[in-house]
């Protein structure tokens, strides 16, 4: 399968107050964007448990998107900063697991920024498309050659 035909599946996390409303706004304004992203509404980007991202990748997502209110605009004062921290940490963890850091993206969109929301999604879909499918080994091969440590007792 060639990469330019590849249609990635992306899970997007939005916060209830800014980015989900940006998505709504993109909708009411009939702005068109790529259909590859499936959104989940959280109350706040701070609710994003890193497990959610791992779960999405494990279940076949090719990319994961985290969105929230702009720094300083968080409905819950400062929780989007906590999302930012988790995002930065997650990228490192993903890299260590052999998943390209570029498969996880974070951007901020206010309730008025439907156009930015749509444009960023299009951009991310292209980025993930360029990375290709996230292929997990279909069957994990047990590695026989690793010697099993023997417990040594005196």
């Amino acid at each position: 399968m060639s990469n330019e035909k590849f249609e990635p599946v992306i899970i997007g996390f939005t916060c209830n107050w800014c980015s989900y409303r940006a998505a709504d706004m993109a909708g009411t304004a009939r702005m068109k964007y790529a259909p590859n992203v499936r959104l989940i509404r959280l109350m706040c980007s701070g609710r994003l448990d890193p497990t959610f991202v791992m779960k999405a990748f494990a279940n076949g997502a090719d990319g994961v998107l985290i969105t929230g209110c702009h720094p300083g605009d968080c409905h819950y004062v400062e929780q989007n900063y906590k999302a930012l921290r988790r995002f930065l940490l997650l990228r490192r963890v993903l890299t260590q697991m052999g998943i390209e850091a570029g498969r996880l993206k974070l951007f901020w969109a206010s309730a008025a920024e439907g156009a930015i929301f749509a444009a960023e999604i299009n951009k991310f879909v292209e980025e993930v498309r360029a990375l290709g499918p996230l292929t997990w080994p279909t069957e994990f091969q047990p590695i026989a050659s690793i010697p099993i440590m023997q417990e040594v007792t005196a």
Partner: protein
Amino acid sequence: MTERIGVYVCHCGTNIAGVVDVADVSKWAGKHLAGQGVVVSRDYKFMCSSLGQELIQKDIKELGLTRVVVAACSPHLHEKTFRNACAGAGLNPYLCELVSIREQDSWVHTDKVAATDKAKAIIAGGVARVVHNAELEPLRVPIHPDTLIVGGGIAGIQAALEIADAGFHVYLVEREPSIGGHMAQFDKTFPTLDCSACILTPKMVDVGNHPNITLLTWSEVEKVDGYVGSFTATIRKKARYVNTDSCTGCGICWEKCPWKVVDNVFEAGLGKRKAIYTPFPQAVPKYPVIDFDNCAYFKNGKCKACQIYCPTEPNSIDFNQKDEILEIQVGNIILATGYQLFDATRIPQYGYKRLANVFTSLEFERLCNASGPTEGKIVLRDKKTTPKTVVIVHCVGSRDENYNKYCSSICCMQSLKFAHLVMERTGAEVYNCYIDIRTPSKDYEEFYKRVLEEGGHFIRGKVAEITDVARVPSEEGKLVVQVEDTLIGKQRRIPADMVILSAGLEPHDDAKEVGKLFGIACGASGWYTERHPKLDPVATMTDGIYIAGCVQGPKDIPASVAQGAAASARVMGKIQQKEVALEPVRASINENQCSGCRICNNLCPFNAISFHEDKMVSEVNPALCQGCGTCVAGCPAGAISGTGFSNEQILSQIEGLLLINMPQSVVA
């Protein structure tokens, strides 16, 4: 127990059905999600209609549904509708999940196959999630009966009087020394040509005297905490340097004050006021303010004329007065902070501030106001010459790609009013250069006819330039307005003595910051966003915060008054309910799982989590918790759960969303 789930796919007319194959989606859900508990799947033209709701209710009763998934519009629009429908059939409303296949699918995608597949995925996500939805009861919190109104223009005044007359207490905060807003600056109001002051000042006096209104002028809101029903607002009452307990507003201080200052606010720079002043004679409250930057005493420690001549006992002038910080409790807030005039110097080719006799609309209002700097005489900037030709330029800074794209809505009628006043008072020739004349309200078109019959000239074309460079002798010493008359297809140069720029309305420079303070959003043009553009024009997305007047968008006086009254009705409705139901989205800690690490304590910005020293566990105070869920995600022991957005709900939703893959393009 296995759940019995009903899936309902809405066509929304053709809004969804035009792009998504709803029948296919509904059939697919019934077949492929049966293993997850879907027992019935239907599609219907308008799910939100009473017939659509009855369809769901009938199924709940007859098929014994325990969960409902509606695939329609955004939950921000109709979540309540469908929850109420479920509640009506005896199902706990929180067991209903609304997933959006309109705003997030049919409206934003054109590829029908991909959109249909996405709708299936979204529904699969909703079905997987709804299984884990729990029965919840909304939290009920009492509503504080007091209301804060910010902005003392006509919209704020109207709202304050309506609420106060109904017997509830109002705090009216205004940042200028007097209430009245822009309307106090006007001379006449269109289309009836009532004197603005004659209809406004009695209302201002009512506000000043009303036992239920606490008027806080020369004050600004600095901080707002809390939520609908119990907001705490911190208000800075700026130092007036006048003791309002003893001041009688006699006016001797500003008569005696020797320092004249150009009044850029109320007189729009055309007139002067003293360093101690009230903006205008009918100001409410009547107490003056000392202008700190221009008072000689504050500059060099000398003068004190106001204090020396103050006749009250004790003396009302207090140079040592400090800003006061007030903290008030209110249940609801109305924002009516109005607009600012478009800065006409931003269009250099119109020559405002460079060419003396180019005036803005607000300057002209002051010129023709009987209590204004020229006592109502329409004269040039030299304050003596009466103009013989006046050109009124419409749409200055409005309907212009370079400045504001929107129509400022009031300028046409305002310009027609100016045309009438100029012709009536000076007999001058008046030219209106317009893009379109817009007179859509009651009696407005008749007023336009009247000005036409009175002999006003109308040129359809956007003014290109206003200059004082003459090309022919008849233009010498005049302003020349260059405009294309698009109806005859010719360029025209109109020599004029005076040009009035009908400047548009803009949101205040600090509208965004103020919005942030109150937790409400601005739209693309900077006006505050209403909850619904047609059906809920005075509420905002933040419960308990309402908007009225020009903060919501440009509008004239009748519309501002109507919105002020509408917002007050909404507030009074809330107060009468005595309590409000809040979404039960809250975090709670399982004591048995909590290790007492206290990580969550610092994650909470509302200080809702406290630590029990004796039990060595943390605890969430549900009244303070706002439900963001950051602690839920942060707890290393997984001891915290968040209602409405539990880990099980979200993890299952992820699984559901990924149940089907993207349709891959066929490799050629």
